[in-house]
């Protein structure tokens, strides 16, 4: 039995490479100073979907909402083995919080994807909310299982997984369809595959085609530009290299629920923590000194 998987991914600033310019003076993230990467746990979600496909067959569709530059992680998904990728990009998505984002994603998934299983990373490393997956499940009206560490069984319209519950684990069985949020412990994502990279490196979204042609022909009139773009679209489409792109109108989203107007989240306060002090301490290599050090670290909550 084959299963169709929808994987929802996000392009995020690489918060592991935080440098001096990573934060703006007002405490918000300076996105331009950080390289944009594939959200790490979304790679685990994609890997799980690809493993399901390897074992049972079916189709893996990857969807992201983001800036045109998010095409980068869609190509990366194709390199790793995704069958189809979709970019939701629209200026009216800007400033969406988790509620608006999950609403937009739910419209897109309902409209475009025929799925048995929806997979999301547990959380994105920029906001660390872990809310979008669960909210999306609610809006799709399907069961959700969060914090997946292992897929134990998948058969006859039911799925059994192990989920991390902080102080242990839980084995859960659910009917399909289901939404899973996947943790970094679930697997080690495969790397990009050679032949898929060689082919799909040329995959483009319509907006990328448009931007490139406009940049290359600054003086051409509109009709010519349009023709060039149409020509390129059909050329890419023929080779299976045109990435699907949708706006809010296409997915039938109610604009009141999108972007700023659909986002009730208010930022209460942002604190910019600057680590000023740096000190070191010598610990004698004996039982007592080490025991004291451990206790000290537990007391100041450095370790739990």
């Amino acid at each position, binding site marked *: 039995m084959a299963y169709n998987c929808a994987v929802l991914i996000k392009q995020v600033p690489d918060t592991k490479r935080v440098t001096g310019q990573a934060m703006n003076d007002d405490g918000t993230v300076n996105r331009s100073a950080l390289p944009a990467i594939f959200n790490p746990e979304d790679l685990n979600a994609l890997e799980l979907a690809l493993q399901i496909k390897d074992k049972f067959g079916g189709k893996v569709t990857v969807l992201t909402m983001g800036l045109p530059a998010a095409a980068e992680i869609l190509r990366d998904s194709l390199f790793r*083995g995704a069958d189809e990728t979709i970019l939701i990009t629209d200026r009216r998505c800007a400033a969406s919080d988790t509620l608006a984002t999950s609403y937009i994603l739910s419209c897109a998934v309902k409209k475009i994807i025929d799925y048995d299983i929806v997979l999301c990373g547990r959380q994105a490393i920029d906001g660390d909310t872990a809310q979008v997956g669960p909210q999306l499940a609610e809006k799709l009206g399907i069961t959700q299982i969060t914090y997946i560490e292992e897929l134990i069984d998948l058969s006859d319209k039911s799925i059994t997984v192990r989920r991390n519950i902080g102080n242990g684990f839980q084995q859960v069985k659910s009917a399909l369809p289901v939404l899973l949020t996947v943790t970094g412990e679930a697997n080690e994502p*495969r790397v*990009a595959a050679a*032949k898929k*990279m060689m*082919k799909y490196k040329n995959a483009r979204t319509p907006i990328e085609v448009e931007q490139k042609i406009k940049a290359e022909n600054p003086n051409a009139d509109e009709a010519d530009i349009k023709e060039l773009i149409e020509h390129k679209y059909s050329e890419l489409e023929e*080779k299976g290299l045109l990435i699907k792109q949708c706006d809010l109108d296409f997915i039938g989203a109610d604009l009141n629920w999108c972007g700023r107007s659909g986002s009730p989240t208010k930022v209460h306060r942002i604190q910019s923590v600057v680590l000023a002090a740096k000190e070191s301490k010598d610990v004698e290599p004996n039982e007592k000194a080490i025991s004291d050090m451990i206790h000290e670290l537990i007391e100041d909550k450095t370790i739990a």
Partner: protein
Amino acid sequence: MANFYRDNDDIQFLFRHTEPGKLAAVCEDGFKFANEFDYAPADADEAIQNYDMVLDSLGQLSGDFIAPRAEDVDRQGNTLNEDGSVTYAKGIAESLEKLAKAEVMGLILPYRFGGLNFPNLIYSMATEIVSRADASLMNIFGLQGIAETINAFASEEIKQKYLYDFAAGKVTGAMVLTEPDAGSDLQAVKLRAFTDDDGNWFLHGVKRFITNGCGEVLLVLARSEPDRAGGLGLSLFVCDRGPTVHIRRLEDKLGIHGSPTCEIFFDNTPCELIGERQRGLVTYVMALMNGARIGIASQSLGIAEAAYRIARDYAASRKQFAVAIEKLPAVRDMLIDMKIAIEASRALLYETSRVVDIELGYAKRLESNPPEDKAEARQLKNESRKHKRYASMLTPMSKYYCSEMCNSITYDSMQVLGGSGYMRDYACERHSRDARITTIYEGTSQLQVVAAVRSVCSGTAEKFIAELAGQQFDPKVKDLLEKLAEGTERLKSSIAFCKEAGTDYMDLYGRALVDIAIDLINGFLFCAQASSKVDMEVAVAEDGQPNNGHTVPMKERKAVIARRYITKNTPKITALAEMIRTGDRSTFTDYQALVGPVPAE
């Protein structure tokens, strides 16, 4: 998040310096494959982008996935099960699965079998990167030459049967050559190949020291002509590892524990002939082994790179006498020499791979799609032949130089770490053990020297060096080129002396002659790198602050390396040349007196 391609300035510099676009044009035969295969490149830029992306992906897999498993693989080794099957160490099995998914198990196979049709140069880089992560995994990843041998010499039917599975990473292979009494001397192979009444071939006998002998597809060298001794009695066969193939034992080795070394008993195993009878050793195995030698040179480079990095890191952080030990001239010297030796080896190996690509590319072109213009065809043929001669000199040189270098680097790496390096807490000791085989298998260093010295003395080395010397160089290396020119004269007079003294004398001083030739070739290669068109900035270390963001142009750095390499090697060349001219023949004349009797029990 480690990437063994992206974190290596020298590989990336040489990737561009070696002009892979030119090699792509040769391998892609005018980029004609793009019409037929959706992943084949349409032009040189796209080919370069492909090579870069695939190396990047492999670099990531090597750094993040393969390397962290190497220690466990070393401790665990492989298991021979009671039913005669072999279970790989867990990390090897996992890594092979990832490599198959990364679609890199058919790197040099043609597109039509699902391969990537990459140049050997890129394959050498890939092999180095994988070997740095786990040297023993290379013994399986680096066996892609087996599939290439089938591709080059077997019938279309056999190719169809095996090559798709090789490219997909569904099967692995083994070169089943050596026997208890046929190691370096493969002409002594005894394993019997015979036909039944219907003309079907079978194999019977024992093979020993077979790397990955438990692989699914075995290329077996066997005596098909029972009445004919020597190499011309041998043919090459392919068989599946079926019920008549018995793995009798796994060797208990010093290093490369992840690579299963098997003893195999063939009990009337059905097999198929590759190509023609009697050409097994003289043509097919020779071609196979040339590729394998480049593979071992790449493996050596990977091990050396891994060992060097441990020493470099340790010397910067370990304090003795109140300073980091890298401040001590003796330690510092070791590190510099290690680094230069690695870069010299890499220069030689990549140059060798490039020459092989041109040789094979032109040969393929002449076979499949010869130019209509006769003069052009003749020129292509001449170029192919010339590069073949260069390749047959450079291949044994690379295998010899890189594997000896690898042993010296792992030795020095442990030396830098001192007592800590001797302990199993650090990977130095593993690298030392893994390194030790590289000068032994696929032809010992001594045999590589024998193979190389003939080319050195037949004029090939002089021609090749003259070609290198004829390139455009930056004026800043002018004085170095003069030193190299002097060295070249010394090489010529040494060769003349040896020729006068006879073939036995030439072999006796083979190593010295080959050493001089390699030092000169590397000197020119460094000068060419210092004159490179490639603009690339690389980080430099400053005392105590390894990552302070300071950079220099790579070619400036290479000029510094060229200067030190050539300055330090010029007196060595003089000394070697003088040694050759001593005329000392005591090896022949005074052996008994010099070594004394065989020790009594």
